[in-house]
Structures are given as structure tokens and as C-alpha cells.
């Protein structure tokens, strides 16, 4: 041994978990949904997935280059954003929609606000809403080779009948990744087992949404209606993969419960009273915007000041 040793502040050991590993596990968890979407909807879905992921990653790389910053694409968060955006696109959308969306999500929603960890809104959802407003007809056209006609929720809203079994499996019209409840829950279980996400937000979201439906939909305890509402639209994808986005959800435990309830109520309002059959994206975005407020009122009490039991 020679010379002086390295010193640093405690602790001198670190856990093995890294940001990169977390992102990778989210990507893996999204694979069942992605594969199901591609198999269900065909080649164009695959093109859209590749286009959003590639454009998102490339946009982040270019942005870092232009700003003369070290590239951050290695953390894989751009891949997650791209993938989530693709899962929120209609399967028949043209490729350039995917590219515009990917670039918007990364550059406008994420990088301009300071990059990973600084964005106040889920980038994929921000981009989806941007596309929905800018290209409404494309974004709401769910006709494709496999299915024609409206999404089950739209049918339901018009008073039509839907097959809940098909909805749970995912054999219905909809965006690439929102249709299969089975595939989404499978991926979510993987993340829950790994401890990457927990049930606090998805659980309170779903439960409060169901309670809202029972109270305000005018249909009461209609099992068929409730299960169709749970399986349909982006609720499952939103609850497990987008509402749980670390950056844009409250960091405090209590805040996460409040956030989940808020999302459930907002989604209920949009779906029951709104003009559109959907409402998950907007509910989560509004929820994202309220996070600073939620955190302010739910800042935890410290140990020895009443917080020891939490």
C-alpha cells in the first residue's frame, strides 16, 4: 500500500440497484403488452413502436449534443418514454405521427424542463395529448386490418353491448397497448414482485374509480358495466405504468394515496360526464400538475414528531 487512500463521506457501500436497471425492468414489463399489440394489430403497430422508440432516443441524443451535455440515453428512460407513447397510439396511425410524438415527448416535455427527473408531466402522455389535439382525426381513428368501428368504451357510452371477455384478453379496437388487460397486469406483476412499483397508486386509483362509477354512473352495482370500464380504455395501462411514473407522482406515501384517489375521481368524471369515452390520459396529466400541491400538504412528519408509526 502506498500513498494516501481514497476517502468519502459515509456510507461506504452502495446497493446494486441503478436507474438503468429500473428502466430496463420497466421495458421488460412492457414487453408482453407490446408483443400482444403487435401480434393483434399487425405490422404497422411494430413500425410505430420502432419509430417512437428510435425518435425518442435520437431526440434525446441530439438534444444533449446540441446543449454540449453528456448523453443521457444510457439511462434507458427515453426508451421507456418511446415505448409508452407507442402503446398509446392507434394501430393504424402513420409513422410520422410516431416520430412527431417521440420528439415532442423528449424535447418539449422532458429535456426543455431539465431532463430526467425534472419534467412535471409524464412525457409519453404529454405527447399523446399533444397529438390528440393536433391530429384529432388520426388519433381517434381506431379502424385497422383487424378491427373496424368504435372502441368498446365508445360503444358502451352509446348504450351498445360489449364482450367483456374479449376486452380482458384484448381482442378489441383501441390503441396498441391499452387493449389487453391480461398482458398489462402480467407486466405489472413483474414490476411489483421486483419492488419497482407498488400497489399504492394503482390500487387507490382503481378502487376509487369503481366507487365513483357505482355512485355516479347511474348504473349502480352493474358488474358488467364496471368490468367493461376497468378493462376498457387506457385504465390498466395508465394505472400501472403511467400513474406510477416516479418523476411525476408524489414522493410521499400519503401523497400517493391522494394522487390515486384524485386520478380515480377525475377519470370517472371524464368518462361518465365527459363528451369522450376516454379520460385516463387527461386525468393523469391533471394529476401530474397537482403533484407539487399534493406533496406540500402531505409532507411527512419526522420520527419522534408523530411520524414514527408510518
Amino acid at each position, binding site marked *: 500500500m502506498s500513498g494516501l487512500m481514497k476517502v468519502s463521506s459515509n*456510507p461506504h457501500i452502495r446497493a446494486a*440497484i*441503478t436507474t438503468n436497471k429500473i428502466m430496463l425492468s420497466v421495458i421488460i414489463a412492457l414487453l408482453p403488452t407490446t408483443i400482444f399489440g403487435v401480434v393483434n394489430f399487425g405490422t404497422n403497430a411494430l413500425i410505430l413502436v420502432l419509430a417512437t422508440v428510435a425518435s425518442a432516443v435520437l431526440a434525446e441524443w441530439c438534444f444533449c449534443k446540441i446543449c454540449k451535455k453528456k448523453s*443521457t440515453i444510457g439511462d434507458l428512460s427515453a426508451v421507456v418514454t418511446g415505448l409508452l407513447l407507442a402503446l398509446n397510439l392507434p394501430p393504424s396511425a402513420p409513422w410520422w405521427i410516431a416520430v412527431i410524438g417521440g420528439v415532442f415527448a423528449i424535447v418539449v416535455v422532458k429535456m426543455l424542463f431539465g431532463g430526467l427527473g425534472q419534467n412535471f408531466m409524464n412525457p409519453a402522455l404529454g405527447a399523446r395529448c399533444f397529438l390528440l389535439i393536433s391530429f384529432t382525426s388520426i388519433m381517434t381513428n381506431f379502424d385497422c386490418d383487424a378491427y373496424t368501428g368504435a372502441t368498446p368504451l365508445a360503444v358502451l357510452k352509446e348504450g351498445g353491448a360489449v364482450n367483456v371477455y374479449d376486452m380482458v384478453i384484448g381482442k378489441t379496437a383501441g390503441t396498441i397497448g391499452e387493449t389487453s388487460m391480461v398482458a398489462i397486469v402480467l407486466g405489472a406483476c413483474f414490476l411489483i414482485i421486483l419492488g419497482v412499483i407498488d400497489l399504492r397508486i394503482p390500487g387507490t386509483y382503481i378502487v376509487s374509480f369503481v366507487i365513483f362509477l357505482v355512485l355516479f354512473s347511474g348504473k349502480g352495482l352493474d358488474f358488467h358495466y364496471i368490468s367493461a370500464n376497468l378493462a376498457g380504455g387506457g385504465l390498466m395501462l395508465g394505472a400501472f405504468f403511467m400513474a406510477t411514473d416516479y418523476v411525476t407522482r408524489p414522493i410521499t406515501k400519503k401523497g400517493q394515496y391522494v394522487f390515486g384517489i384524485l386520478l380515480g375521481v377525475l377519470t370517472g368524471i371524464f368518462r361518465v360526464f365527459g363528451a369522450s369515452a376516454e379520460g385516463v390520459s387527461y386525468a393523469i396529466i391533471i394529476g401530474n400538475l397537482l403533484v407539487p400541491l399534493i406533496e406540500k400538504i402531505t409532507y411527512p412528519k419526522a420520527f419522534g414528531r408523530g411520524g414514527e408509526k408510518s
Partner: protein
Amino acid sequence: MAGKLTFSGGIHPYDGKDISKDKPIKDVLPKGDLVYPLSQHIGAPATPIVKKGDRVLVGQKIAEAGGFVSAPIYATVSGTVKAIEPRRVVVGDNVNSIIVENDGQYEEVDFGPCKPLEQHTKEEIIKKIQEAGVVGMGGAGFPTHVKLSPKEPDKIDYVIVNCAECEPYLTSDYRRMIEEPERVIGGLKCSLALFDNAKGILAVEDNKPDCIAKFKELLKDEDRIMVKALKTKYPQGAERQLIYASTGRAINSDMLPSDAGCVVNNVDTVCAIYGAVLENRPLMYRIVTVTGDAIADPRNFRVRIGTNYHELIEEAGGFKQEPAKIVSGGPMMGFGIFDLDVPTTKTASALLCLTKDDVSACEPSACINCGMCVEVCPGRVVPSRLGKVAERGDKEAFVAMNGMECCECGCCSFICPAKRPLTQQIKSMRKMVLEDRRKKK
């Protein structure tokens, strides 16, 4: 009111105790000079009462306590005082120290006649502990006689021995409990003699079932002392968490354990109390675990205070691999040291030599708000937010966000997937705030 045997938050790091836990405590005889820093405790530095050229004996007082919150220092070898000059200590500062040249004779002073505990008055017990220079040997170094003299001794309900040893790699307390459980219990009885209404608690983590069994057997006819098997989790041995887990009482950073009717002492400290009260022997030794994957033969040593760290490494067979980092203490709360040429002090529990330096291997990246630091924080604060406030140097916001409630246990930095130095940021901020508060007084 019973504790839940655990607390919320905490982590389960690799514990590394297997490499040294079965190695019996071995005595180490110092070869080189012994260095006694005059500040080995919290409070005023001790004042030297010897001068250069004086001959000293084992157990001879060489420095007097510098006040009530202070502790005297004793020679641990016989020999000649070589110098009184600043020497480097573990934390990197130069501290005024007495240097004694060891003559290898180990000639002891006469410690006087011993008497059983029952024949001591309370004042005598405290006086003996104070005179013996006993301080908190878990790491803080707070003078023990001060801890044992709360304002209202009748309101103390529990005297707790911190047998958790929750820091990874450390096995010195474990060896003590296995080899000398009678001394641990004896030392606790000495402290219990001071508090008429108190019960004794031996708080042991449940990863040491052999210690728990041994204590229970020795205490089967004793109704004033109970053994609590706490859940194994870091930082179970942090004072506030330990009190909560064993009694259900919670204190914050503005309170002392005595505010919750508790007194907490570490295993080694309790053994030192035993020596002070029942054997009239001052604090001269401590148990040090020399361990880590860079050490050839990891061991537990009974070390004379003042012994150079180099000698401990040699005793443990030297390095089998080049160490990347050397820590005095455990990996979670110990001090990284840049030079081994420092003395063993009253508060040194371990010398940990790691071949891999996790800290320099990890590059901090952006906080992704994952909340893992919040999940593991035993102080129930929000470390990531405190880190951000600390970056801005905003002391007011730091205090408003409960920053002062941090116990610097290191869980947040450990768990952070973005490898952010949260503990460091919060620690420096706390230091600055405490500094301001001192100035205002």
C-alpha cells in the same frame, strides 16, 4: 408499553459478519509508540497531567477531564512520555496528543481494593465511572457519567444495552456477548443500581440467536432485566430507533433518551462500566474488529487504546489484496481514512478494509424521484428533497423540511439508484445549521 421490536424504514445490506464472527478475541500487545489524543470524546478536551520525560505505568492517569462533559485518559502501557504534540486522528484532524514510548514491561499501578456492587452508593458508582474515563464506545464518545446523571433519575424506566450491532462487518460486540456475557450483565446491573425504578433491557438483533439464548439462560432468575430480540435491520442500533423498537417510545432530535425515560449504552461501554465499578480499572482497552475482503486474516482484537492502526493490520496478517478503501468503523457510518498512521481511540469499533470502493465506482446521476430514500429513511424525512435544498444552501427550508431530524445513518445514499450522495449533502447542511445555532447562543 412494549416496543414493536422494529421501526419503519431501514435497509438490509450485505452483512459481511461471517468472515470474523467466529474468531475469538485476541489480545494485541503494542510494539511502537502509543498515541493518546486528548479529544476522544464529545466535550472539552482532557488536560495533560504528565510532561515529557515522565515515566508512566499501565492504568496511570495521564490527562485530567477538562470539565464535567469530558473524560480523563489513562496510559495503557508502561514507559516514558515522549512528547505532547498534535497528531493525526481518524477523522483527519490533528489533535493534541500524549505520546508514550512503550518499555514493554506492562507495569501496572495498584488499582486498590475492590468491593461488591451492593456496598457502593450511587454517587460512588457515578464517580468511579467518571474517574475511569468511560465514554460511549459505540462511536459517539459521549461521556457515560453524564448520560447516567439525568435530571430526574427516578423517571428513568429503562436502562438499555445496545447489543444490536447493526453495522455490517462488525463483530466486536458479538464476540463480547459470546465470550463475556457476565460482564455485559454485570455492567448493566451497575447502571441499574443508579435508577431505582428502571428495568434493564438487553436489546439484541435476532441475527445473534446464540447471544440471546446465552443472555436468557444467565438471566432466568432475574426479573429486573429482560432480553429483547429485535428484528435484524440497519440501523436498528441507532439510538432513537433502538429506544422505539424496544420500548415503543419515540424521541426527536431535540430530545434526549432520558426525556423518554431511557438510558442507552453500548455493549463495550457497559463492559467498561463493569471494569470501572467492580474492578477499579479505568478504560484502557476496547474490542476492534479488523476485517474486510482485503484483510488476510480478519479478527477481533482486544486493543490497548493508543495502539497504531498499522499494527492492527499487521496482527491480522496484513493485506491479501490491495485495499481500495479503509474505513474506521462500519461501512455505513464509519470514517474513510486516508492514512493508517492513526491511533486506536475509545470510539474505534472496527478497521474495515475493502477491495472495492463503491463510492468512487458510482457516478451520481439525476434524481428520478423514485422515493426509495423516503421508504428507507428511519427518520421519516424526504432525503431527496433535503439533498436538493442542500444544493441550494437554503438553511431555512432545510430546517422547515425536518432536515435536523436526520441521524446520518446513510440508508438514503446506500439505496439511491441514481447514486446521489444524499447523506453527505444532508450531513454538511446539518453541520452548518448547528454551527449557526452555536454562534447565536
